[in-house]
């Protein structure tokens, strides 16, 4: 029987390094020593699985999942959709995608957020779904607003939606942020600019997708997510010991 292969080495040149001085909080929260690189064992090539009994179908509709009956969230109605793929361009089915975001005014429903923009009483700001058999996912939400944060005195985060994705293995675990095409705050953001590779930044920008819109109802953005791929087990297999 073929034994499972390793995942491709993570390309640390396209990910942000730990220490990025312009994003000030990273200075005291970044390890100084090098990471110790591990070949994958069973501890890394496995990861949690989730099923439809874990979540509710309404969890993916942020316009309604916290709204009072007959009401809905205020803001630009958007569909955020795309596929979760691996580096071999193969879809990752049945994987959990979780999102969270500010409301249309840039205010988070969080007891620690004190920004003066108001809470939307009908908007919670979190959603989750499982990809289908083709790795496809979709959410309906409102487009989040930009908001200020204490880094430099006048820093503003571009509109963004935080995304958490599992894949099939714990070594694929990823949290990232999805930005929106054309936002002039993107190139000015110290968090975006922690990423050294301009193409890797471009990959975090959701594209306006007019074909995905519902006319007279909801506009759409397309955002594909790529998780680490996995090698075939050509010639070598010693994972379980021999």
């Amino acid at each position, binding site marked *: 029987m073929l034994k*499972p292969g390793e995942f491709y080495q*993570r*390309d*640390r040149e*396209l*990910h*942000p*390094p*730990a220490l990025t001085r312009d*994003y000030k*909080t*990273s200075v*005291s*929260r*970044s*390890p*100084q*020593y090098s990471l*110790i690189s*591990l*070949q994958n*064992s*069973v*501890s*890394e090539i*496995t990861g*949690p*699985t989730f099923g439809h009994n*874990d979540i509710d179908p309404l969890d993916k509709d942020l316009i309604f*999942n*916290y709204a009072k009956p007959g009401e809905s969230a205020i803001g630009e109605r958007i569909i955020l959709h795309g596929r979760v793929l691996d580096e071999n361009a193969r879809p990752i089915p049945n994987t959990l995608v979780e999102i*969270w975001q500010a409301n249309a005014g840039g205010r*988070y*429903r*969080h*007891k*620690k*957020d004190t920004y003066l923009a108001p809470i939307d009483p009908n908007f*919670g700001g*979190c959603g989750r779904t499982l990809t289908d058999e083709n790795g496809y996912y979709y959410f309906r939400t409102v487009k989040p607003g930009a908001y200020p944060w204490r880094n430099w005195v006048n820093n503003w985060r571009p509109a963004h939606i*935080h995304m*958490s994705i599992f894949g*099939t293995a*714990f*070594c694929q*675990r*990823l*949290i*990232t*942020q999805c930005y929106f095409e054309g936002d002039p705050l993107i190139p000015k953001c110290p*968090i975006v600019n*922690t990423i050294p590779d301009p193409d890797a930044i471009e*990959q*975090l920008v959701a594209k306006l997708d007019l074909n995905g819109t519902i006319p007279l109802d909801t506009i759409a953005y397309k955002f594909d997510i*790529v998780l680490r791929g996995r090698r075939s087990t050509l010639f070598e297999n*010693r*994972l*379980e*010991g*021999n």
Partner: protein
Amino acid sequence: MPQKLDYLPETASQTAGPYVHIGLAPGAAGFDIYKQELGWDIAGPNAGGERIRVEGIVMDGMGSPIKDVMLEVWQANADGNYAHPEGGGDVEDGFRGWGRVITDFETGEWGFDTIKPGPCPGRNVGTQAPHLNLWIVARGINIGLNTRMYFEDESEANAKDPVLNLIEWERRRATLIAKKTVRDGKTVYRFDIKVQGEDETVFFDV
């Protein structure tokens, strides 16, 4: 036409930011939205093995607790099997092996209840000592930090563990070993994580 590799690059990581709780633990953010928050029950009621509690704190380079951490754990059951098709064997009904905890906003303390995992196979040869795989995200952390927690009372297995033995600096191996105490008759392992500075915890590129 030139030959092409045609691999897709992995999506780049970004920090989870200060409000990770909204998405991943909304109850802690201060509102109730989901029927079921995920990650609170790691082992389930049917898991064999010793019931344990794991507690700790994550500290920054100044030695201050990081109070907006989210930490995820991935572990095998007492037989050393992961709840996954390639996990090595069967697990008990309801054993997920995955958990998610956040720190207390005031103290930075986190903790979870689970079972002590069994040893599992190493990559090439040998056996890995019982361990928990941990993944840490927070504001200021650009890409999730992977580490492992081993158990103080498994010193014989730890001495042979292939991953611990990859760490050339023997003194640093100690940063991955949780301290055992007993409280009200229950086994508690203390595992403090130092992201930076003196006795910095070992982090892995997995």
